[in-house]
Every structure is written in structure tokens, then in C-alpha cells.
């Protein structure tokens, strides 16, 4: 199967420079086929909620790729309730890149971007996306919108995309200071963004619909928070990709009925789940879901499981539907990925305690300076508090920039260490 996907990826890559439409059609055909597979033949070890979210995530890639005229290109932290109000599909930069990697086609996109002058040291998610944009495999969206969260790559990729397509660009600057003044400033920008959309869609904003979407997002977050509580002592079989689907649920898809349904079903699945077993890990930052040694070690495994990723529940705030702009702004400003790394580390420490994990994998994704440079601080703080931490260098998107051998050795040694530690603790 892996060889077949690799051949498919090579086929897509070969089309990128001269036949971008063919490359896109191939990708779409693969995604449609995968969706049918998920709907008709769901993996037997996956809970219904997880499978449902996999289909929702697949749709979130298919729709914007197939219908650029109804699409806005967005960054992962962009609050998309405003887009939902107008029925605009968000094309999520990181999601698109993940799915390109899923099709084993990232090499061609990344090479295309680098040949166009994009630095090799740039984040691979953004390189793959830019390869798609500059080659026009990804067609011109209506507009581009991004926040300054959570990294510098946003300031470059989306500006480049807007300039390349010649479409309007809206930039939401999220202050680094986590304060109510920052919330007000960000909310004012979201109001400006609403005007930007009114102009694009040539119709006024339906404020009531926006409030309904924000309320739905608030309910979803509450249910997902309740799932966190249940995860402490339950075992629900999962795949490392599931946590990435949840990243979409917690951000760009928040406010949609599909994600609210997922949160409800996940809560139900967890209530029925068996008692916890094996090694439990908190994963920090993105997950190289394509890497064979990680899939073999962590997917559907009762020996060792990633119970949560710190990219989820990172922005838990009470939503006030009567103040939709402030609610969305507060989510951005108080997101744990905003501000000093200490906020993110302390919040992860809180997750460790709440979920009762055995250890933390701190993944340094290629090109993510914010995460990489905070690695030693994170390890020090987590280990001071009793949570062994593995700093794992790799690439969440570019399979050519990661060494399976190195990953396997580090990961397996870490699990062995945690198992011994747990056994000793139990004996004591």
C-alpha cells in the first residue's frame, strides 16, 4: 500500500510544473476515494466520533480545493465563524499541506517552492502550500486572511499568496501581550474583517447568524473540555492523525454543526471507553503522522498512546454570543500559543496533570523557531515537575527531511524508559 501511495505521489509531483490542473484533479480523485473509504469501510479500531471527524476534515480540504470561487485562504488560527456566516469555505494552509503529505506528494510541491526562491529553512507546511500556490495547483481563492498567530511564517506565506493571486488580503494582528486591551484591539480588527467580507460578498453581515456560530463554538469547546476530563482514566483507541483532525475542530472548523456533533459523539465514546492502560503521552506541537516508526508504535496501540496534543484546547475561553467579536478576539489573544513560551509550557504542564500522562514528546518541527527555541525551557520546566520529556527533532510535513531510523530509536527508547519508570513507581 505504501508503495502504491508513493507511486501516486510521484505521479502528482510529475504533473506540478507543467500540468497543475492534472495534479489537482489527481489529488481530488484520491481525496474523494479516501472519503468513500472512510464512510463505507471505517477502520475497525477507530471510534465513530474519530471516523466522523476524519470525514469532516477530508471535506474541509476537498471543498476549497474543488471550489476556489467560494473559498478564502486562511491560516490555522483565523476565527472562521465569519466565513461560515457567508458560506465561504476556509482553505486552511496547514490542513492542505498535511493532506498533500498524506498523498505522498509533498516533495514536488516543496521542490517547486524552493525553486521559486522560498528558503529551504522555511516551515515545511508553508513551503508545501506555497508550492501549490505558485504552481497554481491550488487555484485563486476569493481572498486571503491570516492572523499573526502563531509564527512568523504567517507574515510571509499569506502576503506572498495574495500578491501572487492578486486578491485582497486581510491581516489580523494579534498582540503578543495577553491583555484586555489586546482583546479590544483584536476585536476591532475582526469588525474591520466583517466589513471586508461584506464588501467581498456584497451583502451585510448576518449578526444573528454570527452569534449562533459563536454560541455553537462555545458549546463545542465545553464538550471538548469535558472530553479532556474523561480522558484521564479512559482508553479510547486512536491514530496519531486524530489529534491533527482535532486541531481543525478546535480552530477553523469551530462553530460548524459537524464539529459540535463530533464533540458530542466523542464525549459519548469516551463515556463508554475502557479503563486506561499503557503509557500515556502528551504530544507538544504538530505530529509527523506519516512517519512509519511513529505509526507502528503509537497507532491503535494499547502499549503507548498519545492522549492529547497541546495544539488542542489551546484557546479555551468562555464564549459570549452577545459579544461575538470580543469572544473570537479573546480566543486569539489568550491562546496558549500567543505570548511568552512560558504560557504554553505552563498550560501543557496543566494538561499533564489533568490527563495524568507518563511523559511528554516535544516535537521540534523543521522551520518552527518558536517551538525549537523554547525546547530546553520546556523540558526543564516539565521535568522539574516530574514529567520526562523527549525533544524530538523532525518534520511534520516533509518526509524527506526526517530520519525514520533516528525517530524510531528515540521514540522506542523513551517508551522503554517510561515503562520502567512506571513499573518502578507501581512497585514502590
Amino acid at each position, binding site marked *: 500500500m505504501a508503495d502504491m501511495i508513493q507511486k501516486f505521489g510521484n505521479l502528482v509531483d510529475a504533473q506540478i510544473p507543467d500540468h497543475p490542473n492534472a495534479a489537482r484533479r489527481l489529488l481530488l480523485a484520491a481525496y474523494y476515494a479516501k472519503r468513500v473509504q472512510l464512510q463505507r469501510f471505517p477502520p475497525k479500531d477507530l471510534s465513530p466520533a474519530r471516523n466522523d471527524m476524519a470525514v469532516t476534515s477530508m471535506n474541509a480540504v476537498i471543498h476549497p480545493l474543488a471550489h476556489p470561487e467560494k473559498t478564502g485562504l486562511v491560516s490555522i488560527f483565523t476565527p472562521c465563524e465569519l466565513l461560515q456566516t457567508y458560506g465561504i469555505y476556509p482553505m486552511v494552509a496547514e490542513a492542505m499541506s498535511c493532506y498533500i503529505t498524506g498523498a505522498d506528494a509533498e516533495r514536488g510541491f516543496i521542490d517547486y517552492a524552493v525553486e521559486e526562491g522560498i528558503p529551504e529553512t522555511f*516551515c515545511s507546511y508553508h513551503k508545501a502550500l506555497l508550492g501549490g500556490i505558485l504552481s497554481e495547483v491550488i487555484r485563486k481563492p476569493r481572498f486571503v486572511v491570516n492572523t499573526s498567530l502563531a509564527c512568523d*511564517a504567517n507574515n510571509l506565506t499569506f502576503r506572498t499568496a495574495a500578491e501572487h493571486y492578486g486578491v485582497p488580503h486581510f491581516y489580523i494582528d494579534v498582540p503578543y*501581550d495577553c491583555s484586555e486591551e489586546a482583546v479590544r484591539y483584536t476585536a*476591532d480588527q475582526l469588525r474591520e474583517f466583517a466589513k471586508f467580507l461584506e464588501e467581498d460578498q456584497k451583502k451585510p*453581515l448576518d449578526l444573528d447568524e454570527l452569534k449562533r456560530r459563536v454560541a455553537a463554538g462555545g458549546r463545542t469547546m465545553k464538550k471538548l473540555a469535558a472530553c479532556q476530563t474523561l480522558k484521564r482514566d479512559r482508553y479510547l483507541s486512536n491514530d496519531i492523525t486524530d489529534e491533527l483532525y482535532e486541531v481543525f475542530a478546535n480552530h477553523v472548523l469551530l462553530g460548524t454543526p459537524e464539529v459540535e456533533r463530533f464533540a458530542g459523539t466523542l464525549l459519548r465514546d469516551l463515556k463508554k471507553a475502557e479503563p486506561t492502560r499503557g503509557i500515556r503521552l502528551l504530544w507538544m506541537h504538530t505530529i509527523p503522522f506519516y512517519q512509519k516508526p511513529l505509526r507502528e508504535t503509537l497507532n491503535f496501540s494499547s502499549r503507548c498512546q498519545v492522549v492529547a496534543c497541546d495544539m488542542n484546547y489551546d484557546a479555551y475561553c468562555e464564549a459570549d454570543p452577545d459579544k461575538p467579536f470580543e469572544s473570537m478576539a479573546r480566543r486569539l489573544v489568550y491562546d496558549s500559543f500567543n505570548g511568552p513560551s512560558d504560557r504554553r509550557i505552563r498550560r501543557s504542564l496543566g494538561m499533564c496533570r489533568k490527563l495524568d500522562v507518563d511523559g511528554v514528546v516535544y516535537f521540534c518541527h523543521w522551520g518552527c523557531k518558536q517551538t525549537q527555541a523554547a525546547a530546553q525551557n520546556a523540558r526543564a520546566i516539565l521535568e522539574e515537575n516530574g514529567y520526562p520529556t523527549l525533544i524530538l527533532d523532525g518534520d511534520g510535513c516533509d518526509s524527506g527531511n526526517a530520519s525514520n531510523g*533516528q525517530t524510531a530509536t528515540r521514540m522506542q527508547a523513551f517508551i522503554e524508559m517510561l515503562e520502567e519508570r512506571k513499573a518502578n513507581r507501581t512497585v514502590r
Partner: protein
Amino acid sequence: MIYYMCKYTPLEIFAGFGEETERLAPNTDSFDTAESLGHPNMCGYGKGILEAAQNPDVQELVLVSCCDVVKRIYDILKRQGKQKFLYLVDLPHKTSAAEERYMEGQIRGLISAYAAYSGKKFDVKAALSQWSASAVCGACGSAVTASQSINSPEHVESEQSYISLQGAHSREELPEMIRRITGISVRDDTCTGNRNVEAPENIFAAYRRENRTGSERINRGAEQAREAGQSEGEPVPERKQDFSFSAEQAPENLVIHAYAHALLHQMPCMRMADVKARDSLGRNALGVVYHTMKFCDYYGFEYAERKKDPEKPVLKIETDGTGQNSGQISTRLEAFAESLHLKTEREHMGGTGKYTAGVDSGSSSTDAVILDNAGKMVGWSIVSTGAGASTGAEKALNEALRMAHLKREDLREIVSTGYGRETIGLGDDSVTEITCHALGAHYLDPEIRTVIDIGGQDSKVIRIDENGTVLSFVMNDKCAAGTGRFLEMMARTMELSMEDMSRIGLKWKNNVQISSMCTVFAESEVVSLIARNTPTEDIIHGLNLSVAGRTAALVKRVHGEGPYMMTGGVARNRGIVEALSGKIGEKIRVSEYAQLCGAIGAALICADSGGSTRRNF
């Protein structure tokens, strides 16, 4: 002493506390401490700052949230706790009225924090006076008067000929090196260089002229709406603010507001949301030296844009923040100076013979060529450079003389090129291999418009005109991937000779991807492929494609156009030539004298025979 790194730092504020400021200029070549505190993949400047901050003298440091690495430097230093006063100013990405007000809040925060730390009272008049005094163009150093705005076209136009050093922060040696090699002045337009804080009197004059009600109107309006319980999105009438003061008479709050305005409206660095003003950078410069730094992506993006204008000469210099590759940088700068015709006239040693010689001292081989008065090649040699470049050069020249049945005194002039050109102590002058390869390729085939040279240490692509003059060139960065050295390392891994690599690679059957961008990773990938019994010919083909891909990217960067010629030792590797032809979509010509190309060019440079010489064997 208050240390800082970013040009957006509100420096002048510290005069209000009677303190002096100094930019932290890292100059270490080792990042051991920084990498143990952070991560090896931080940019060299960031690592350098972390190293510099370990100096006990750096007790007061003000950082700005200008990029991801600086934000994390703040976190790391805060945890270390070595500084008595460590502060991070949050810089907005936009510059409209709302952001001016946000910046004003940030400056007030800094004033309060420093006052609390030092126990000193802030004197706004002293800060204002410092602001007036320092309102000079950070790039050219000229004072900015009330009638002349720093960013005004008049000011920019008044500049003289210069080289504009742009891109990421560079070490202090780089502008010095450019000045020395090109012989003309250098404007530091890097991210830390062009601090252009407009004079207070300009700002207040503009406020009066525009009858401006100030940035407060937007934010205060929104605040009033909230206070009045008005619904979302309702516009609120403006509240009139008085900006009719002169700078000296203005109360503190307006001075700080105007100062925030001045700081934000400098020439934007690449992290700002609107960077259109940067198009004017280096507009009148004779050329642009563009400095990029590994793992600083902002300026890699801008460089890609700058390269799109084939009319403006741009030289890319990439460093890792250390001063370790000054040899490579020097070669590039010399070639750039040659292409801009900035190099001073050569004075040859006055030999009277009829022949000229060129010696190309490379990292693997040293080549020599002797031309007669008609430009005919009468002798040549290729010898291994060996341990000493000088010995290799002497040997190569002697062998070429022997072939031509000549003696040393028959030579009118000798020009050396290649990495060892300055050290071999041979000949009348030295010229970079870029200029020499261009002339050599033109000599071998006058139709050639793009020369591709994959050498032992680096790769270069040179675009030339119908006379063999360099129009533009690019070279690979410090990394070995994509060079002859990369192929040698891989050959060693597979226990093959370079000749075997060339021969066997042509017999490939299946496409194998060697996808790693890193030489070390690529080696481990090759080992994995060997372990999986992948046929050697397919692995070699994968390596050829990898090198071809990197070289094709260089061709694109230089706007290469056919016909193409490949020169240098790697041109003998047919697998590479075929893979590269496939990537470029055009057949690449390889002369039987490909390896001698640099030496031919050097011999042509010699007085009276360069430029117009035609192929003549």
C-alpha cells in the same frame, strides 16, 4: 548602559533617564551556549545575541518582539535571570492609528518598568531632545531637518553612488569587506541598519498641517461605544484631540504618541504587514548585496523578489552568523565588483613574451592554460591540487609550459583564479572564477548564454552576454549539498570511484528519490536504500536528480537562458548532465575542455587578448 538589538527599540526614551544605549553586536564564531539553551536551528544572529547576553556587562537589555527567535531569546534569558533589567516591547505588525496607540501603550509600559527598576524619574524633555538629535538617516547618516523627511523622495534622491547592503542583520565585518573590495561606500540597509526615526518637529508639523485629530479617534471611539453600551460595529463620532502644539511645548502624552508614530513609520522591516515602502531601498545604488541568514526566512523571501528584477545587480551572501566563510564571501564580492566594473585597473608585471597563462587553483585540481597572441591554446594541464595550492599551481604551469615547449620568460602575463588565487603567489593578478568561467565558456562556444559550474566546494550559475561578459550570477550556499563534495561523499558511502558513479548512474531503471536536503541525512538515506537492496544505478540516479534539482533552482534564480554549457570537473559526469538537462528542459553542452574553462578565462583576461578572442585551437 542599555543594550538593544532592533531598530524599533524606543532608544530615545532612555535619555529621559540619563542612560546611554548601545546596539548589541555579536561577533562570536561558536554558538555552544546558545544551542544548549535554545536550538541549533535558530538563526545565527539570534544565537549570537544569546551568546553576547552571557557577558556580565550586559545587565540591561531591551528586546522587541520583532521575530520568533527574539521572542524566545527573551524567554530563555528571563529564565536564566542574568540581566537586572530585561524587557520585551511588543511591536505591532501594522502602522495605522490603532497600532500607533498600541505602540504608545508599549512605550509607556517601558517607561514605567524602567522607572520602577531604576528608581529614576522620567524626564520627557531630555528624551525629546535626544530624539531630535538622533533623527538622522540611519542608512546614510545625514541629518534630517524639519523640511526634509527621511523617507521623502528628495532625501533618497540626494544619495550618492553606493552599494546597498540589504537583508538580515550582518556582522560588522561584511560592510567593511564590501567597502574594501568594491572601493565605494556602503549603506547598511539591513534589518538592524536603517534606523530612520523621523524628527519630532516633522511629526508635529505634519499633525498641524493635516489638522489631524490623532490616532485616538479610532480606539477611543470604540471604547466610547463599549462604555455607552452601543451595539457591535456601530461607528462612533470622533473625539477631537488637540495637536496644535510644537514639539517643545507638547505635553508628555502627545510627545510619546508622536514618538510611537515616528518609530512605527520607519522604513519597514520584513516582519511588518505592509512592506511596499521597501521597494525604494537601494533605488539609486550601483548594486545590492543581499545578506540572508540561515533560518531567517524573512529576508530569503525578499531576496527571491529582488532577483525577479534582472536589471538590478544583486549579489546574495548567505551566512550563518559566524565569520567563518570569509573566503567564499570574498570571491563573491570580487566577482560582483568585476561585474559592476568596479575593480581598479590591473597593472601587469611588464613581461615581454608572446604568450599568456591562466592558472585555476581549485579545491580538487589545479589547471593551467597557455594562449598565444592569436588566442590559440598551445599548452594546458590538469594536476591534483594536493596538500599545497602553491606547489600544485607551479606544477600545473610547468606542465603546460612543457607541453607548449615554452619557458617561463616566454609568458607576457599570468592571471590566477579559483579558491587558491590569492594564496598561490603566482602571476600578475587574480580574477574570480566567475568572470573566468564566463570568458572561458564564451571562448569555447560563443553561443553560450548560461554557464553552469558544479565545483568541489560550490556550484555557480553565470548568465553571460554575447561578449562573454557576466550579466548575473548565483552561487549555492554554504551547505555542501548539490556540490561535487556531496557526490564525493556519496561515492565513498557506496564504495565507488567518481568514474564509476558517472558510468553506472546512466544504467538506471527506476526513479529513486533522495529527498533529503541535508547531506548527512542524504547519506543515511543512501545507506537505507543499500540495505533495502536498491540497485546501485538507481541510487546514483537518485543522487544525480538531487544535485540536478538544486542546480536547476540556481538556474531559475539567475533567469538562465540557453544555450547552456556545463564546466568544471562534474561536467564529466554524464549522469548529472543528463539529469540536469531533463530538469532544465534543454540539452546542456559540454566541451571536451570543460575542466579547463576557468584557466582559459584567466589566460584571456591577460592584457590585449580578452573579450574578442575566438575559439582557436
